[in-house]
């Protein structure tokens, strides 16, 4: 077979069966909401906000871990946390700031 024959045969090649997918396709697309550009934008914003929130949580987690793994004394840790949260190193205020009771108790 020459190269011209090969290319010509490739051009002539057809799917041997008949195809009619209109009904099943229409049935499927009628059940799918079309994702408009506005919707896509909203989804992107949502994904971005989730990523930012995850980063913040991670950053706070790392900071707290670092505080506890360094050899700071209790007073230093209390001062640092209190400073960060703009609270005076007070047991109740710190508990209010969201620290678990166990953590606050361990600091004292």
């Amino acid at each position, binding site marked *: 077979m020459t190269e011209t024959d*090969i290319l010509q*045969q490739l051009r002539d090649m057809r799917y041997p069966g008949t*195809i009619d*997918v*209109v009904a099943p396709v229409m049935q499927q697309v009628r059940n799918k909401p079309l994702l408009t550009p506005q919707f896509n934008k909203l989804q992107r914003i949502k994904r971005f906000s989730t990523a930012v929130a995850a980063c913040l949580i991670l950053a706070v987690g790392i900071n707290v871990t670092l505080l506890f793994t360094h050899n700071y004394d209790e007073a230093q840790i209390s001062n640092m946390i209190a400073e960060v949260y703009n609270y005076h190193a007070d047991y109740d205020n710190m508990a209010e700031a969201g620290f678990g009771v166990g953590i606050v108790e361990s600091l004292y």
Partner: protein
Amino acid sequence: MNEEEVIRDILAGNVNRYEEIVKEYQTIVANLCFKIGGAGIDIAEMTQQVFVELYMALPRFQFKSKLSTFIYRITVNVVCKEIKRLSRWVTPTEDIVPPEVPSSDFNAEQQIIRQEQAKQLHQALGRLHPEQRTALVLYTFNDFSYNDIADVMQCSTAKVESLIFRARKNLKKMLS
């Protein structure tokens, strides 16, 4: 059919007009699926999947390129994904059904030879690397230019040239 008007209508919520696009392109898509994916894949299912994915992708269509190019790109992606999935357990190149060829210009003997050649060609196509096969099929499909093929395959024109050159060389070697 004014494609731009139909798409804008669909995007505005008139889903029923999508039928016009499916009717217009279903045979072309099935042929492309058959040439790229071979008889080892379910052509009807692939065609259906292409049109469902096209529908979901319509909001992304920018009206800068032709709708046909957009459809071919989705078809190539869908079929290549299926080939990758199937290659894990089955490559039925030996059982491929010989494709039908237009018979009006040939007598009975020539027709049998051509059928046999078409079968061999189809099997040889199945042994090509999927990228080479896709480029070569698109090259002979609607007489695409290298730029059109690069657009559909989302690669450079130089890569398309190289893929087609290697595909032709390999096919010639397999069929000589």
